[in-house]
């Protein structure tokens, strides 16, 4: 099964703003979020979009 056009994961440095209903990765710093985002982008074949300073989502287009 191939999933298309969906949010695959969310990375955040602020647990209060973490969304529900998808895989959320809590990061301690922006640097960690960058690092984790790069790995998840490659693994999930998605694109990291920064929707806020504290939230990045990985989206499959």
């Amino acid at each position, binding site marked *: 099964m191939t999933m298309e056009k969906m949010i695959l994961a969310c990375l955040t440095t602020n647990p209060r703003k973490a969304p529900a209903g998808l895989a959320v990765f809590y990061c301690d710093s922006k640097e960690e979020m960058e690092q984790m*985002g790069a790995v998840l982008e490659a693994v999930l074949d998605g694109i990291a*979009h*920064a929707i806020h300073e504290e939230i*990045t989502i990985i989206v499959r287009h």
Partner: protein
Amino acid sequence: MSIYIYPVLFGITCGLIARLIMLRTDYRQYPTYLHGKIIHISLGFIAAVLGAVSVPALIEENITAVTFLTVAASQFREVRNMERNTLKQMDGFELVSRGDTYIEGIALAFESRNYLVIFTSIVTTIAFIFTNLYISLGAMVLCIVIARVLMDGGKIKDICEIEYVKPHFEGSGLYIDNIYIMNIGLAKRREDILRYGMGFILKPKNFNAMTTIANLGQRQAILYDISTSLGIFRDSGTPALTPLAKRDLKDGRVAIFVLPQHRDIKRAIEIIGNTPTLENAIRLPSERKKHEEGDSDDNGENDPRLPHDESS
């Protein structure tokens, strides 16, 4: 030996020559060397035989023999299906896909080339039967010229002005000029894009052109052509480095964002300019206007919806 043997052989030869001339393997590498070519030359030969043989059949008043041409037509429709299926399967493995509109255009071209071969065979066989060899050779040259003219469509440079613009970021948003392309969340990717990315603005010359380049298939064809010719800085698992084309909703300009391996601005503009305008993407809204208001020389150049320089 039948009196028609030489005219038929001449017609077949001319049809085959026409097919060979139309069978170009260019930068898109299609048809591939050698098996793809064999298929198309064989089908071209069949088309040439059908065209050449139909003339003596008609002269001998064997009218029903012409029904063979309808069999040929259904065979060539199959050619179109074959091309469409093959190209669609191959498209899934391309780093930048051709897109369905481009594939349909290529499949259509393959079918129509066989009809042009039949046309060439018929005309040259008729010329050989009723005139002499020299006039027949002239007819062959004329048919080939007509075929080339019919096969050459328009190009993007005929309908748009192309300008290089360096990509830039506003926050996480990637822009070409003032056209938003996409959001890039990772700083490392933004660095890659600024280092390897190139941006181009297509400014339509008239309202018809604006509608044509708005077509998603046409935009994908441009991205495919430029990525094929200049290489692409991406691999599977890096969708953030996918080339994109986005439209300015206000004035219809299209921004092209690519990451070529060979970063030559002049060459890139040339390639974009030489991208064919796809038959299925061409729209002529000004024709409707003309039709409704009577004949007019205006083909959309003075349309207020077109982009105009602020200074002018």
